[in-house]
């Protein structure tokens, strides 16, 4: 998926469908989450030690639905960072069936210190890892 450095492969499960026979909107949000945590794993967030003292937490999310997902679809979900702020970051997601884009989404993330109970600056080491994966300045 061009422009999205981290991609997860997904399959629509029976339980993801609603009474209209469509992939329910909540499942889209969960696919975005899957690629988000796959990205997080690549940059060392959510390692074996669990969440750690600090982590990127979700402050806001959105999804725009472009086409229906159906039973047994094989989907791919792409994730990328669009913006790196001081304490916050923005990600973008795309869910596709082959070349057809089913949905696009965004997330606003805040780097949160669970001991201090507030947002703190995103460390340089994390920024470097994200920029290395993105292969472009942010």
């Amino acid at each position, binding site marked *: 998926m061009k422009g999205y450095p981290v991609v997860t492969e997904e399959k629509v499960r029976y339980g993801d469908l609603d009474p*209209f026979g469509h992939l*329910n*909107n*909540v499942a889209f*949000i*969960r696919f975005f*989450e899957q690629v988000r945590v796959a990205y997080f794993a690549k940059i060392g967030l959510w390692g074996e030690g*669990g*969440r750690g003292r600090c982590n990127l*937490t*979700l*402050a*806001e*999310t*959105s*999804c*725009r*639905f472009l086409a229906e997902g159906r039973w047994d679809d094989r989907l791919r979900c792409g994730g990328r960072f669009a913006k790196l702020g001081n304490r916050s970051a923005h990600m973008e997601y795309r869910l596709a069936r082959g070349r057809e884009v089913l949905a696009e989404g965004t997330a606003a993330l805040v780097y949160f210190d669970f001991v201090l109970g507030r947002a703190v600056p995103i460390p340089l080491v994390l920024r470097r890892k994200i920029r290395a994966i993105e292969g472009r300045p942010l």
Partner: protein
Amino acid sequence: MSAPPGWPSALPMHVRFSDCDMLGHMNNARFISFYEEARVAYLKKAGELVPIADYGNFILLSISCRFISPARFGEVLHACARVAKIGNSSVEFEQALFRPAQDGFEKVAEGTAVVVAFDYARNEKARVSDAIRSGMKALEATVGHEVAGA
């Protein structure tokens, strides 16, 4: 249980154990699910005020959610919906989740949802029916709220 002021429809929802993730918070996708339940409850309530013979089909065009405070296992949240605007074929919902607080209600999350009336036989968008418009308008009027474009 009274509803948060300004919201004509509020559905009590339990935060279940399985709704919570590794941080011990209700998972973000559950908020979206609660919003969906709130929209369905809203439509049902509108149909109690004005008979709606056919709800037709609404499909979801977009959704957003801003997370304000983590929700935890065992809480009961009020899942709210209200209609901000009705277009020719679209309806813009405002949504929020509240928890009871000492001095009323505390907002846990807020968001938006845009739905589009859809005719599956023709495979194209349809006009929001007059019955649904009237029902939404009547429901909003119960909290003194006027709907744009209704």
